[in-house]
């Protein structure tokens, strides 16, 4: 049975996506504010099995530096020209929309399209990830995927290729051309293909996580972790922040635990691994959430500053990734060249 979401569900939903962002994925604020004014509430979310499997589907998301979206606000219909181009290329209308990156800002993206399209509760990552070749459909090699994206000044780029890495590189290049951030649409697949090749029920998980978090936000830290179905990994102060000597995108945060433990959080644009006393405690695809231990804000990687008092929690990653070693190798820390951090699960 389809789920109906009221406007009141928006805050927990956004909070849930923030948690699934694992420190990345961008702040949900922009879309949260846009959707508050939407006249489309209540919105309906369909399960994959509730829709005709042959229905064409698309996914929409923002790509690039999500921080820029706060400075250069996206238009009222940021995805319209991209969808139009995709439909023109495919030669048919696409009536269903799913999410591309169900962690952070992009978890809310399908809801901006709810007026014209049916929302299906399926997602191509189940958490925030940095590159496009990590989309589940591409990881599993589903054929016929096309991608459209902004190239700036109203221009649209359409990519059709068998090589997933090209999508990442071409879209990344076009996005830089578009000013560092822009929209992106995946299409060329059906609802039926999502059944095996996507993370299902991610929106429902987000809503439940967000509700649990907001209910327990100011309780004990271990209480929050328990309510989220996760583990409290650490509480302490960030004592040093070190850039990785080999990869400038990698940062290691040293956290002095309140009981004297020595923690290290390793992050790129998302939190990727967490180590306590030299032992791995959590690693991607597990979700590592960092909270401000005092304000209880969910912190992004860019919010982690020296001397900040933080709490770190682990939430289970999407099971979909762990079903085969081939899927897993796309999201574990070694996918980013970080040795000795795989396999905490």
């Amino acid at each position: 049975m389809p789920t109906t979401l009221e406007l009141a569900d928006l805050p927990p939903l956004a909070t849930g996506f923030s948690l699934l962002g694992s420190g990345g994925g961008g702040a949900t604020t922009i879309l949260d504010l846009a959707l508050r004014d939407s006249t489309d509430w209540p919105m309906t979310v369909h399960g994959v099995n509730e829709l005709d499997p042959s229905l064409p589907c698309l996914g929409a998301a923002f790509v690039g530096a999500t921080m820029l979206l706060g400075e250069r606000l996206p238009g009222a219909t940021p995805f319209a020209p991209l969808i139009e181009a995709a439909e023109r290329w495919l030669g048919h209308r696409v009536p269903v929309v799913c999410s591309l990156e169900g962690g952070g800002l992009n978890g809310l993206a399908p809801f901006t399209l709810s007026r014209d399209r049916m929302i299906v509760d399926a997602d191509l990552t189940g958490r925030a990830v940095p590159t496009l070749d990590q989309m589940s459909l591409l990881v599993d090699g589903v054929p016929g995927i096309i991608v459209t994206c902004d190239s700036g000044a109203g221009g649209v780029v359409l990519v059709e290729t068998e090589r997933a890495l090209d999508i990442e590189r071409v879209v990344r290049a076009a996005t830089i051309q578009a000013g560092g951030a822009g929209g992106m649409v995946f299409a060329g697949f059906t609802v039926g293909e999502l059944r095996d090749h996507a993370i299902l029920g991610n929106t429902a998980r987000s809503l439940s996580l967000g509700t649990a978090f907001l209910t327990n936000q100011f309780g004990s830290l271990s209480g929050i972790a328990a309510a989220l179905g996760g583990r409290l990994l650490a509480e302490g102060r960030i004592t040093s922040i070190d850039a990785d000597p080999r990869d400038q995108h990698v940062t290691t945060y040293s956290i002095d635990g309140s009981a004297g433990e020595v923690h290290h959080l390793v992050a790129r644009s998302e939190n990727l691994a967490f180590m306590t006393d030299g032992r791995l405690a959590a690693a991607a695809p597990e979700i590592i959430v960092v909270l401000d231990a005092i304000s209880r804000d969910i912190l992004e990687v860019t919010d982690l500053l020296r001397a900040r008092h933080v709490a770190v929690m682990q939430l289970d990653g999407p099971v979909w990734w762990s079903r085969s070693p081939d899927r897993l190798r796309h999201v574990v820390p070694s996918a980013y060249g970080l040795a000795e951090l795989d396999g905490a699960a």
Partner: protein
Amino acid sequence: MSEALRLGALLAHPENGGVRTIAGPEDTEWTGVVVETTEPDLPADGNGRLAILTELPPTRPWQQDALVRRARDRGFRALAVPHADDFGAGTRALAVRFGFTLLHVDRPMLLAKACWQLIEARDALTLSYVRKVAQSIEYHAQGLPDLLRHLSASVGHGVALIDAEGVLLEVGGRLSPEVHAAIDFSPWVDLARMPAGTAASVRVDSPSREGLRLAFFGEGLDDRQVSALAVAAEVAMPAVAARILIDEINEVNDASVSSGVLRDFVDLRGTPDDDVERRMFDRGWRTTGYHLAFRIVGRSRLDARQLLRFVTGELGRISIDSHATTSGRGVSGWLTFFEPPASSQVERHVASLRELHVAARRSFNIATGVGSMASGSMGLTTSLSEAGDAAMIAVNRSATGWFVRVDGLGLDQLLLARTSNDAFVPIAQALLAPLESGGGVLLKTLSAYLDHESAVSPTAAELGLHRNTVAMRIQRAQELLAVDMSDPEVRLALQLACRAVL
């Protein structure tokens, strides 16, 4: 693996591959050591040992954490790896948290060798020290300090030559007084161990100097190292004893050459002589400039060479070009100024010489004479001659502390020109001229009076005069000369003048 391996002993080992503590306990010891290429090669049963890895460790903080963690989980208590000094604060904190010692080492194989020597191959350690002693003897040494420097540099520990009073010479460190006090001077070999350090010493059999010991010392040395160093000291001792003798012979030789040069120079009395000039120049003596000579003579028998050694040492404290050499039964020397010195400067240096004299009197029964300031070759001769004269006077001058300076005497020129000096007679005649008026009787009476220790009766007896006559003539002479005859200096001057004129 019979005995424990102490971190302190490793740190004190001269060839430990540059090991140093990065984090964790420093006062620690291990049951043994394991050397492997990488951490996965380490055995699972660390059993409180030290692990040495030869390959470079990972550079990322979490990998470094994991390395420390795994080594500790295997039961090791310490880990030595190259580049551990690059480990971040987090990893260091982790080592502290585990009570696990993290060591940086530049050359792991050398550290492994040092461990092996300390744990299993004590003879190898001893042999390596002995070989180093042998190597250091092979090199030419300028003197005893140089030999000790060679020994210290190649053995890698401090070396000291000590007697019961304290340290005579030390190189490569400082032997703490606490350790010195703990050294037993009676046995052939002694091992002293104190919290402040450790020393292995051996008696030095030197015919000329008794009660000397040669000690190797350091901090943190364990028993095996100290025992090995004791053997090294035994091997080094004959070389040190021989060096002491050689240095003494050289010193005697050098002193006699110097003394000969000075004698030849003085004999020239200022006449230029190329050969003597060259020999003086070879010794660094220059005749140009302004000279202030001094002479120190023994009031009783003394070893002029020992006195010279002392004087040379003390002259080092005077910040002016100075030279000294043995000469007869004493030491002659001079200070040389390149510019004409101000009188205050001269006074200051005379004061320094007096301090030298006072210091020397603590060990030697001596008297010192200081000449006047004079320039050039002739001036040096003059000043040396004056100093010699002053010294002769000083021998009997307890009132001035056996220190006499030519410029400090009222009738100085007269006194110190002495009878041997051609300049003396005219001066003496000038001084005694007032007495000529009496036809010479006053002079004769005065001379006899002074010769009889200023006693009237013996003088009268010798001259066949009445006591009152003698007393009257002396009174008259005193009036004519206008001098105070109660002053011993005046009496002596008059006596010498009488000797010269009569």
